[in-house]
């Protein structure tokens, strides 16, 4: 971070020295600034255009849009609660599965693996992020779904189905195209995000923290649990939220395994459903009436706002750790 402020000082000096210097300079700066200014304008354009198209439905249905589950284009009754529920449930499943494994991977890379192994393992896990969403969808559709239906869901039902509080989550017939399968696919997709961000956070933990614990005779795990993790906690929460934000907006892979059939909210994770993103992908080209279209755009707008809030929150948390003053 020291070099950054130095860089900024140099920029300031160049500004003073070059004031009114050269016509080429002024032209170049104007062009570059104008192009760069297109980026916030584009963001503004996205928000405004979506808002304009969403307005008719938002005004007509108001708060009921988020609380009602009836989605009936023929009767022109639109409530997106089931889509919101599907998004929340699948994202939470993904987060529950991916956070421990992702943080485990990050700890392995940053704290345990021999030096020569760190770069290759990081690279391989990052490859998971390079696989297009449609390929996760294809794999989930043909490979994962049959396994879930044939083996994993019956197993969950038999072992957990009768446990009092959580039994309802694993009831009903195993169909293999449902909220649980979507959550599992999402967990694989957000794993590289959580791993990469956590790894960077762990790298920002000053070595003096570890050295202090080790000098007192702590084992490696005790060092991690008592010195490293507390220091990195905020950043790791940020990593998880970044993963969550990615899961919320993920479309194709989810669309292919979630079933896209029910707009009912049921306790069982074996229920086929919709997420907000998969509802948009499935119904967008079918929207023949203006109010139907407006309702779909409203879903997109809500999704966009939630994703933006998650991203801002996550970045603040990550920065708070990565930018903290180093003790060394």
């Amino acid at each position, binding site marked *: 971070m020291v070099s950054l402020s130095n860089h900024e000082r140099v*920029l300031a000096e160049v500004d003073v020295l070059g004031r009114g210097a050269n016509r080429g300079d002024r032209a170049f700066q104007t062009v570059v600034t104008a192009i760069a200014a297109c980026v916030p304008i584009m963001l503004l354009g996205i928000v405004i255009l979506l808002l304009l198209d969403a307005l008719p439905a938002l005004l007509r249905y108001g708060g009921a849009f988020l609380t009602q589950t009836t989605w009936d284009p023929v009767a022109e009754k639109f409530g997106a609660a089931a889509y919101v529920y599907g998004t929340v449930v699948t994202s939470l499943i993904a987060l529950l599965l991916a956070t421990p494994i992702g943080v485990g991977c990050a700890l392995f890379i940053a704290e345990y693996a021999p030096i020569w192994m760190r770069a290759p393992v990081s690279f391989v896990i990052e490859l998971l992020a390079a696989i297009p969403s449609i390929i996760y969808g294809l794999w989930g559709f043909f490979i994962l779904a049959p396994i879930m239906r044939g083996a994993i869901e019956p197993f969950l039902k038999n072992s957990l189905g009768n446990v009092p509080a959580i039994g309802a989550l694993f009831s009903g017939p195993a169909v293999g195209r449902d909220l649980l399968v979507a959550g599992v696919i999402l967990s694989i997709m957000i794993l590289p995000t959580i791993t990469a961000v956590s790894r960077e956070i762990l790298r920002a933990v000053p070595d003096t923290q570890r050295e202090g614990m080790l000098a007192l005779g702590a084992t490696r795990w005790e060092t991690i649990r008592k010195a490293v993790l507390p220091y990195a906690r905020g950043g790791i929460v940020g990593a998880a939220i970044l993963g969550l934000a990615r899961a919320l907006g993920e479309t194709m892979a989810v669309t292919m395994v979630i079933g896209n059939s029910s707009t009912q909210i049921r306790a069982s994770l074996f229920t086929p459903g919709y997420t907000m993103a998969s509802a948009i992908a499935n119904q967008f080209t079918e929207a023949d009436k203006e109010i139907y279209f407006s309702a779909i755009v409203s879903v997109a707008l809500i999704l966009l706002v939630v994703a933006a809030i998650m991203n801002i929150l996550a970045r603040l948390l990550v920065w708070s750790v990565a930018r903290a003053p180093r003790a060394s």
Partner: protein
Amino acid sequence: MGRWQRRRITNALATALMTLSATAAVTVLLIILGHVVMQGLPSLNVAFFTERPLPPGEVGGGVAPAILGTLEMLGVAGLIGIPVGIATAIYLSEYGRGNLARAISFSVDLIAGLPSIAIGVFVWAWLVRNVVGQYNGLAGGVALAIIMIPILTRTVEETLRIVPDPLREASLALGIPRWKTILRVVLPTAQAGVITGVVLSLARAGGETAPLLLTALGNQFFNLDLLQPTAALPIQIYNYARSPYPDWQAKAWGGALVLITLIGVLSALTRWAVGRRTHAY
């Protein structure tokens, strides 16, 4: 059991769990890649790359229009996204201070985090409905450009920032104007990062499906007119995977293998080229 022994066992257990997580992640990647290669290979032949899709139920044909369409739209995305991304990176690294720079930097982060389907809805409302009047490949290219820009900007900006300031100062001290310093000294020094950013962002855009479903729509025929609905490989994979015909499902795997190979080869080539260039310094 003594206290020390308990601590040692806990430590060993934790080590095992971390190693297991990393092994699991790597295994999942290998399983997915393995399936794509094994299921995809049998459907690859000359016709797959040269012919157009046949009507439902007929066996044979290929996905050539989809490969062509993806390349067309990536071309459009590159023509828009590369200059905008690099210029934004130059602004942020070389000029950017104050409120405008903060607003631009913030917007780049936010756009990077937008769900791609929302970008699709936006481009549909803007280009498909208001400008062209029908689904078209140009809109698909613009949607991909919007996805590219934040990835490219961030990668290039980071590399520009680590170009040592003495290089800039030396060039300016020789009386070379600032714009020439940026274009002839700073950018060439950061060449490796620029190339990586361009390829990385193109690879990411090439695999996008959701925004294309709402903009380019897809097409079974060869089509070079960007104002018409245009086929794309990811859309073709999606449509074939959902179909009830085994031949089409096999072709979906073939398409997935082609897509993943394209992305892999691009990334590997960049690594190789960048590696060679950095050794030269």
